[in-house]
């Protein structure tokens, strides 16, 4: 059955790189601003002695900060009315609303301040499902994060629900 909500050209994009690879250095101040904003005062983000005592090479960072560390500065010319940016990561769908459905993370290696992290995001999955409120689209963006030694440090799957 052809999908009513997903144009064929969008289906063909499964597997495509949506953003990256981008490489950034994990910055102390960005990570600490993030931890403070979350209200997470874990000493392994603020006190090098505590981080080393906990088995880290130096200060580590909140696990989910990785997503945000990769965000590239963008010009305001690309702002949309909703405050988000126009970018190539948008997938064309016959829907009126995209919602945040959830996330799945796997952590493989610690990430510390000063690490050079490379992130690449792909369209991992895109399909139409039937729910109680009718058809909806499930869209999965998977990001693989590697460090300067080539180790995969984490993978995230961000699930979008569109209807």
């Amino acid at each position, binding site marked *: 059955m052809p999908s009513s909500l997903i144009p064929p050209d969008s289906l063909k994009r499964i597997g495509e790189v949506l953003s990256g690879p981008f490489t950034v250095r994990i910055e102390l101040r*960005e990570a600490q*601003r*993030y931890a*403070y*904003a*979350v*209200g*997470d005062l*874990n*000493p*392994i983000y603020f006190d090098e002695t*505590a*981080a080393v*005592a*906990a*088995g880290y090479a130096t200060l580590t960072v*909140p*696990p*989910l*900060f990785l*997503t*945000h560390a990769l*965000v590239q500065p963008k010009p305001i010319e690309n*702002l949309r009315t*909703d*405050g*988000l*940016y126009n970018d190539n990561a948008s997938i064309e769908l016959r829907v009126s609303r995209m*919602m*945040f*459905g*959830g*996330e*799945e*993370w*796997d*952590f493989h290696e*610690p990430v510390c301040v000063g690490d050079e992290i490379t992130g690449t995001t792909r369209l991992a999955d895109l399909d139409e499902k039937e729910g109680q409120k009718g058809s909806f689209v499930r869209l999965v963006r998977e990001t693989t994060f590697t460090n300067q030694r080539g180790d995969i440090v984490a993978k995230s799957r961000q*699930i979008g629900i569109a209807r």
Partner: protein
Amino acid sequence: MNNYPTMSTVQIGDELPKMKKQASEAELFLYSAASFNPHRIHYDRAYANFEGHDDLVVHGPLQGSWLTQFVTDWAGPRARLLSIEWQNRASAFVGDELIFAGTVTAIDQANTSVELEISEKNIDGTLLMPAKANVRLAGA
């Protein structure tokens, strides 16, 4: 010494100490800023209403980071979060009191890790985010 769980002390059914969060307008702003997210539904009430939200929306990833904090506060700094996943069932809004609760549901002695089931609810008892996490405990 501390009271963090270890593989020899942890038991199936153990409950994590509850955690409460309640974000103000300024705190939502600070998270938007720290996560480089200019989406107006998190700081512009009129725009949030225009998009059909009752009030300023608490970011999904902020709640995700609260879930990770809930686990790591319990497990201690020498533990390692191996995985976490959550679903977004309903929205949280600025000023909402949010309650995090969790239970140990499985213990893997070979992997020195435990599985947790976690819930984030508002004070009406509405389940906002069900979550699961795996964490490797420190010590032996």
